């Protein structure tokens, strides 16, 4: 499979290049992501046990308490924040968290086009997906 590039809406500007971690279900932050380790602690969540740190974190939309914005801020201060966030449709908790933590945030894309482990590059309103198999073959 070849790389594919998508036009996305930029909510918080910034560039990123890293490995995707994808959830097909919405993600809250308060009480769900541990701000000291970056690990998803909600036992019923499909990302349970995985760390968001240093990943391009992809999920449909945010949910839960608006205090979750502060959890994102603490992740950033602890060096455990995602590199960037990609939503299908974002909402204020994630947008606010990205704004105060200086984490690039884009939305309005079909996130089923990204799989965990794919390399994702984000620059100037364009999101490029390099599927995992291609990345490995080229290395």
């Amino acid at each position, binding site marked *: 499979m070849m790389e594919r590039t998508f036009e996305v809406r930029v909510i918080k500007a910034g560039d990123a290049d890293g490995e995707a971690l994808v959830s097909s279900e919405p993600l809250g932050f308060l009480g769900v992501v541990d701000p000291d380790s970056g690990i998803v602690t909600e036992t019923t969540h499909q990302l349970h046990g995985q760390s968001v740190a240093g990943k391009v974190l992809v999920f449909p939309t945010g949910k839960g308490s608006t*205090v979750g914005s502060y959890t994102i801020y603490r992740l950033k201060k602890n060096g455990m924040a995602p590199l960037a966030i990609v939503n299908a449709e974002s909402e204020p908790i994630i947008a606010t968290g990205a704004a105060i933590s200086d984490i690039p945030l884009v939305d309005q894309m079909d996130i089923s086009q990204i799989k965990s482990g794919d390399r994702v590059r984000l620059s100037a309103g364009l999101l490029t997906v390099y599927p995992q198999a291609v990345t490995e073959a080229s290395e």
Partner: protein
Amino acid sequence: MYLSDEEQAMLAGEQGVGVAQAMGIITTLGNMYGAADLIPISSAHISGVSYKNLGEAGLEYLEDLAATGAKARVFATLNPPAVDMDDWQGSPLLTTPAFAKGQFRILDAFYKMGIDGICTCTPYEVNNRPAMGDHLSWAESSAVSFANSRLGARTNREGGPAALAAAITGRTARYGYHLDENRRADYVINVNVAVPDGSSLSALGVIVAKKLLNRTPLFVGFDRELSDDEHKLLGAAMAAVGSIALFHVEGQTPEAIALGREISAPHAEYLTVDDLAEGYRALGIVPGTTPVDLVNIGCPHSSYAELVEIADLLAGRQVRTKFWIMCAPHVVHQAQANGVAERLTGCGVALLSGACTIVSPMAQTGVRSVATNTAKGAFYHSSYNGMEIHLGSTAKCVETAVSGIWQD
């Protein structure tokens, strides 16, 4: 989105890092919602105050922001903290010293930002009562509903961080409920059932919220003028169970009066409610006769009128259960000055000043079952605190406190 020269300067950091960060939140949200520009607000109401909810992450953010020297430039009130503000050590919440320390550090950070620490979920009861047409940035879903609906002011359902950012910038982005076109009713609710008390209004609110989610109802068919407190309970139920931020009542709420028939949109749908049982069922309430640990009134915070009503209903009788009432510190002080507090405490009732049991650690109190008079209180005691719950009128709650037994 258009920004004035001053707003651009704020965003660029010319008024400090904290102001730039706050302006970053406001413009990010404005861009996301396609706002044309920013509007000045007359007040802010900030949620995200309880240490139980904020934890170390929120505390750290607020202290960092306060350290930048950022100050609120409009009048701002705060949601309840997780401790009794007048006497945390004597409170039946059994607050631990370490927890109180965290909570008061949070409050200190707000004070440092020029927010004067009026803590209540009913700011309109004390000294933050907006006028019709005022633009606001309020968090706390029940207060948002009251401001939009009963008062005809204009606010979106803000999150805590966004409301704080609006307090610091004095602005919010022009979208959502700030615009005329988003304020008309798109659902007409025909109330074809008796709603004699707050708990039945609450059950009605639950039914409407389950059906409408976040749309805007116009209620028709009430047999009487609803009081401030009744608007509060109905709105709180719809805001907690769904996310309804605005409702109209035919001939009663200010925009319904001003617009007449124009208050409902041409494409509005219709719903007739003629039975309230589903509202109680939807809250997970199982009818039965059972002992109750705690009768808890004041979600949202009780008004002075409600305290008088409870004192009259108790009529000097001693309660067997724990009986806690949450209210704004101003209301507690008014009740203390007028002897109402003494009538209540003499019966074994505790007034929790500014506090909220929903956002307080409850495990240490040993409470497992709660009777309350509002859908909002029942909903969160069940979903957030894992309590067994009962919902009934204020009179029924008082009788339960006296007998110790809930009877269905």
